[in-house]
């Protein structure tokens, strides 16, 4: 693989991670935070595929990528379920309202 492309892809991974972490710091809606987590997971999966590509073991990379996608889908589903439950019990999804545990 072309080194320029490689660096471009790596930059893409890092930027996506940056966007994701930024989103986690900025977003106040719980469901949106779960969405942002998914962006992070995409970045990680891309990173793994890229790693497979870099070490010329694309199938290994694919295998890891699939596992990550499936596993983190489960996490997202549980997260969504929790968010929905929060909405039901508290009537809001705002992070700020969800800060009774402090100090």
């Amino acid at each position, binding site marked *: 693989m072309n080194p320029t492309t490689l660096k471009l*892809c790596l930059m893409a991974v890092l930027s996506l991670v940056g966007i994701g972490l930024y989103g986690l710091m900025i977003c106040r809606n719980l469901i949106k935070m779960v969405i942002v987590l998914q962006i992070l997971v995409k970045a990680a999966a891309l990173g793994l595929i890229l790693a497979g590509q870099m070490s010329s073991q694309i*199938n290994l990379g694919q295998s890891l990528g699939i596992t990550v996608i499936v596993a983190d889908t489960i996490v997202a589903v549980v997260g969504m379920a929790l968010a929905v439950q929060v909405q039901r019990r508290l009537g809001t999804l705002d992070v700020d309202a969800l800060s009774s545990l402090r100090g």
Partner: protein
Amino acid sequence: MLEAILFALPILTALLAGIQAIRTRSLIRSALWLAGVSASIAVLFYMLGAHQVAVIELSVGAGLVTVLFVFAIGIAGAEIQPQRPIVPKTLAWVLILVAILLLAGFALPFATTVQHSTEPETTSVFWQQRGLDVIVQVVLIFCGVLGLLGVLAEEKAPLDQPMVDEIAAERERDLRNLEYQSSQSMVSSQQGQTR
């Protein structure tokens, strides 16, 4: 160079979609932008030669997850949030820039393709060589499903409107209590300091 430009297209769309997913105020739109990220990443996967993952990403990432999100938003209601973030935006920017630039500094200049022993041509890596991953994944799915059941299962009837109000009122009371307590503790700590 041409290859780089070819790659840059899906990358740029992915980044743009990601930014939009964060910026938009509507939850539904945000979920749809996520699907956009997913789709462009799937294209990228394909270009990188990871064909199976590309398919899975399209079906699971762009398809299933989006549907689930839309479903969840439907249940929870597309609440519009106050715009002002809790963490100052500048702080978030600075932190992200520092962390990501440092990471890039560590990774980018030194990233090269390394030729290792070639792997078997079969596509059986997933099912056979990494079979244990699959088994653990099954455990994980079991836990996830059980978790979903546990969180959502309703033995009482789902909430009807009065109960929501009641809980909201309770929350109001709690919050007021909390504020009162924190102001009290502030006062007492100040008193402690002046003493």
